[in-house]
């Protein structure tokens, strides 16, 4: 029987971190906050339709957009109303979460 440690170690390490769940730490606060965005922006921010996607955007971009929506400097239909529900710290958690996907 041939022994192939590199592959096993790779799979093992991959399992420790599967997106928003890690066997070491559980579900993160960032995942909890961000998952509520996906009803409009699609799972993991991958929007299949007319609503802009979040997936693939940088943390800076997301953070700036939410901050600007919140203070009204960026016009929106509904995002201003949503962004007002989050603190600076929560915006950072959301931005970091989506940019890590």
């Amino acid at each position: 029987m041939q022994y192939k440690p590199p592959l096993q170690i790779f799979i093992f390490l991959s399992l420790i971190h599967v997106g928003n769940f890690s066997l070491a730490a559980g579900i993160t606060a960032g995942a909890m906050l961000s998952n509520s965005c996906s009803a409009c922006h699609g799972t993991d921010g991958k929007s299949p339709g007319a609503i802009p996607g979040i997936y693939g955007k940088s943390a800076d971009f997301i953070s700036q957009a939410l901050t600007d929506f919140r203070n009204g400097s960026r016009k929106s239909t509904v995002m201003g109303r949503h962004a007002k529900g989050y603190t600076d710290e929560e915006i950072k958690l959301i931005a970091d979460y989506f940019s890590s996907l």
Partner: protein
Amino acid sequence: MNTLNRRKFIKLIGHTGAALTVMSALPSCSKTSARVVVVGGGFGGATCAKYLNKFDPNLSITLIEPALKFTTCPFSNAVLGGMRELSSITHGYGVHEKRGINIIHAMVTGIDASNKKVTLDTGKTINYDRLVLSPGIDFKWDAIEGMQASDALTIPHAWQGGNQTALLSNQLKNMRNGGVVVIAPPGNPFRCPPGPYERASLIAHYLKQHKPESKILILDAKEKFSKQPLFMQGWQQRYSGMIEWVSGNSGGRIERIDVKNRTLHSEMGEKYTADVINYIPPQKAGAIAHTAGLVNNDGWCPVNQRTFESTMQPDIYIIGDASIAGKMPKSGFAANSQGKVCAAAIVSAINGFKMPEPSYVNTCYSLVAPDYGISVAAVYRYNKDKGIYKVKGSGGVSPKDADAEFRKLEARYAAGWYDSITFDTFG
């Protein structure tokens, strides 16, 4: 890597002795084969099953839903308005199956909470470690005289998607020009608070094109309704004189329906005869919640609003319209949001992790016309004293003074929302 489940993991590395060493070095791995059974494949249940799998791919998840395909209530008013086909709002469970979620098409007829098993109408029983119920609504048919469940074939409620939507749609198509359509919404709380008024709007959109002499009469049990100023403004702009709303105290509250003569009698003695009646009965939690003894005196399910675990039975969770969820409305969006929080609560409990503080969102788009959308939104949090509460300063309705471009953009986003939430729930 999200799709790499435990079986595949073992298969990949299982041919070496190292596999056992790796598995035993990680005690939390062996904990995650817990059996979670989810009953009800709508916005709550299908979302919960998907996110349970996403949070912990090693769980053994079973989703039990009688229908092979699920036809949504959201956008069913667009079917009545002639803007969509039913097939475009119907979704299957193929993607869930591909994820390794076990799908059973059957009706749950009983829950044995002490032995932790559910019984199906096929006679089969299924054991669970945690049970999630997302049974939606059932109707209080005894709320008025003259109507019973079987009369819904003549007087459709169309408040559950699918055949009921098709029935009402056909009645509208067969109605004469100059006919009267009555929509009779219930008092609070009920599924989809803005729904009856979006329905009036999109039926008016259909009638305006095909039967312009017709009228819509809303006989309401309530004194006010969701997004009322915005709806009324839209009706004035688009359907002037076509839609009349009668509040409960002005004769809108119905106490009897004469099904044969299509006549409604209000508690104040008024009589309304209609060509098409859409009576939406008062509601309660879906039948299985009653059978299992999980409801309060009002017919809804009290839950710990942080986790959605029943306050009446341990290890049973109730999400969506059937649950009492603080300030959140009964909506598909709310059910989707609750499904994720509940999945996080269950995965955290099973694995012995601290659950992050829950965060919930709701957004309800309504179409006044195909190019005229309005919305209401809010962000919600939980605390022990208030339960689920709206974050101060967040949310609210679309501005009253918005221009046509704004309304058009919200109509576009309404369709985009539908694509996204059905992807997030079924995809």
